[in-house]
C-alpha cells in the first residue's frame, strides 16, 4: 500500500496495464507531450513512446471512432476526453457505434475500449464545462459505467475497465483528482464491477451515492451522528452493472434511503435508483425515498449561484432528516 492521489492512482492503473498488455494504448487530446490536461497521463509518453501514447487533434468524433475501430479489431484503447463535456460531439460514435456493435453483430465483434476523463462541477467553469452526464450513458445498453469515489477505486476500477471486453464509460471527478488515500501497489489488484462498497455502516438510514457524492455522504453521516442518527453510506462504484443486492440489503436494515447524484435532477440516475428500490423493496420502506441532486439549470458562473446549484452534505443531511421525520 502507498498513499497517493486519485490522479496518480489512475496513472498507475494505466502504467501497469500497458506493461501487462502490449495491445493497451492511450490516446486523446494533450495526453502525451503536454502530459495530460489534468496531468493524469504525466510521464507516460516518455515511458511508452508515441506509438502507445497518441496525441490526437481536437476531434472528438475522430477520437471516439478511432478508439472504437481499434477495439473492434483487437486493440484495447484507453481514450481520454479532456472533459466529458466535450464527449457530446462524439455521441454518434459512442452510442451508435461503440455501444451497439457487439449486439448488432450477434456477438461476433468485441469492443474492449475505455473512454475516460473528468466530469463534475464546482470550479466556476460555467455552463458548457460543468456536467455529470452518467445518466445518458447508463441509459444506453452496451455501456458499462464506472465512477470511482476513492484513489484505490480509481486504480482498481480502471484496471478492470481496461481488461473488460466491452465499452466502459469511466467518469472521473475533477474535484477528486487531488484527494489522497491508500492504494494497493499490487499489479494484480483490481476492483470488480457491480460490487458496491459499504463505506460506513449504520442502522437508521441508507445514503446511496457514487463518485464525489460518497465523500459528501460520509460528511453528512458525521453530522447526523451528532444528532444520534446512524447513517449507512453505500458507494455504488459502477452504475452499470448496478449492485442492487448491497442496496437492498442496506434498505432491509435501515428502511429509509437518500439517493444522491451531482447531475441535473430531472430524469437523472437517482430516479432510476429510487425506482429500483421501490420495485425490489417497497415493503421494507418506512418513508418515501429522498433525492439529492443538482439544480435543473445550465451551470451559472457566479460563485454564489453555482454554489446554490450544486448538492452539498447539508442537502444530504436535510434530506435524511425529512426521511426520518
Amino acid at each position: 500500500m502507498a498513499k497517493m492521489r486519485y490522479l496518480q492512482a489512475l496513472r498507475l492503473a494505466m502504467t501497469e496495464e500497458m506493461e501487462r498488455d502490449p495491445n493497451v494504448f492511450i490516446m486523446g487530446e494533450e495526453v502525451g507531450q503536454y502530459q495530460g490536461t489534468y496531468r493524469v497521463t504525466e510521464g507516460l509518453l516518455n515511458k511508452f513512446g508515441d506509438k502507445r501514447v497518441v496525441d490526437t487533434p481536437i476531434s472528438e468524433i475522430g477520437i471516439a471512432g478511432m478508439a472504437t475501430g481499434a477495439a473492434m479489431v483487437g486493440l484495447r484503447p484507453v481514450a481520454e476526453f479532456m472533459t466529458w463535456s466535450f464527449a457530446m460531439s462524439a455521441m454518434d460514435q459512442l452510442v451508435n457505434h461503440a455501444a451497439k456493435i457487439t449486439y448488432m453483430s450477434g456477438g461476433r465483434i468485441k469492443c474492449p475500449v475505455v473512454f475516460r476523463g473528468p466530469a463534475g462541477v464546482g470550479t466556476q467553469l460555467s455552463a458548457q464545462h460543468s456536467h455529470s452526464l452518467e445518466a445518458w450513458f447508463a441509459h444506453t445498453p452496451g455501456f458499462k459505467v464506472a465512477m470511482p469515489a476513492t484513489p484505490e477505486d480509481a486504480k482498481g476500477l480502471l484496471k478492470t475497465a481496461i481488461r473488460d471486453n466491452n465499452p466502459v464509460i469511466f467518469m472521473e471527478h475533477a474535484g477528486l483528482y487531488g484527494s489522497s488515500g491508500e492504494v494497493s501497489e499490487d499489479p494484480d489488484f483490481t476492483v470488480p464491477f457491480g460490487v458496491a462498497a459499504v463505506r460506513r455502516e449504520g442502522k437508521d438510514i441508507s445514503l446511496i451515492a457514487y463518485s464525489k457524492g460518497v465523500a459528501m455522504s460520509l460528511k453528512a453521516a458525521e453530522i447526523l451522528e451528532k444528532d444520534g442518527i446512524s447513517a449507512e453510506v453505500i458507494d455504488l462504484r459502477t452504475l452499470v452493472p448496478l449492485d442492487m443486492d448491497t442496496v437492498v440489503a442496506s434498505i432491509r436494515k435501515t428502511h429509509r434511503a437518500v439517493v444522491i447524484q451531482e447531475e441535473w435532477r430531472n430524469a437523472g440516475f437517482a430516479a432510476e435508483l429510487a425506482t429500483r428500490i421501490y420495485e425490489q423493496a417497497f415493503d421494507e420502506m418506512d418513508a418515501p425515498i429522498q433525492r439529492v441532486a443538482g439544480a435543473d439549470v445550465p451551470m451559472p458562473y457566479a460563485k454564489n449561484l453555482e454554489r446554490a446549484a450544486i448538492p452539498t452534505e447539508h442537502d444530504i443531511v436535510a434530506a435524511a432528516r425529512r426521511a426520518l421525520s
Partner: protein
Amino acid sequence: MADTIVKPPTEEDISRAEMLDLYRLMLRIRRFEESVYRKFHEAKIGGYLHRYDGQEALVAGIIPQLQLPHDKVLCTYRDHAHAIACGTTAREVMAELMGRATGCALGKGGSMHLIDPDRGFLGGDGIVGGPIPVSVGVGFALKYTGTNNVCVCYFGDGAMNQGGVHESLNMVGLFKLPVLYILENNRYAMGTALGRSTGQPDFILKANAHGIAGEVVDGMNVLTMREAANRALAHIRETGEAYFLDVECYRFVGHGIGDDNVGGQKLYRTDEEVEEWRRRDPLIQIIRDLKERGYISEEQIEAIEAEIKVEVEDSIVFAEASPEPPLDSLYEHVFSE
C-alpha cells in the same frame, strides 16, 4: 466531374478465369438484389432496403483483390454486395435480411448491419458518414500491429458533408494510416443531387486537403475499377499511407424502399438520365468485353445465369425454413463475456 484518368487494362492484364469471376460476382449481386426486392414486397423482409444495382463494379473490382480476412472492409447501409463479395454466403445474407437465427448477425442486425468478421467484413453502418471515424481505428490497429494490411472503407457522396468525416480524414492523413477510401459517388445523397449538397464537388481536392492522395475512377467498368484499386492498394501497402478513390457510379434504382417506384425518383431525377446511365451498366460492359475477347459463349452465359438462379433460390428456401432467433436471445450480446 473530372475525366477518368485510369485507362482500361489490356488483354494481358487479366486472365479469362478472372474476368469470368468478376462477371459472375457482379451478376450474383444483381440477381440477389432483385430477389431481395421481391421478398421485401412479399413482406418477408422488414425495415429499410437499399439496393446496389448499378454499382456492382465497386465491390467486384476491389474486394476480390484483398487479402481477406486480414484486410478489413467497412461500408454503408447499402451493404449486401459487400458482404457477398467478402464471401458471406447468400444463405447467411438472405437469412439475416429475413431476421433469422441463421443470419450472419444471428438476426440482430438486418439489412443495414450485415457483418462477417471471420471474413474480414466489419460491417455495414446505418449512419451516413459513420464508418469513416471507425476506419481511423481499424487503420491504426493494422499499422500498430505491424501488418501490411489495408482497411477499405466505402461511403457515399452524402457522407462528404458530415463533420466527422473531415475530422477522421484529417487524422488518417496526419497519422499516415493504411486506409483505402472508396467514395461511392452515385451523384445523389438520397434525393439531393451533388450540386444541391455541396459548393465544392471536387472530392479529390477535399481528400488532398487532409493530406490524402487520390483520383477519380470510372466505376461503371469493372476492369477500370480493378486496375485503379490494384494500383491504390499497391500504393498503400508500399507507403503505408491512405488513398482516396472518387468513384463515378450510379444506382439504377431508388435510394431505398421509399423511392423505389419510378414516381418517387422523378422528384429528383429524370427517366432519361437513368436510361443514359443504364447504357453504361457494368454488366453490359463486362459481357461485351468477354465476348470481344472470345472468353464467353451464349451457352456459358445461360449456364452462369442458371447457376446463380439456383444459388439465390436456395438462399430464399434456406432463409424461409430457418428459425427466428429464440426469444431468450433478446438480452444476449448486449455485452461480450
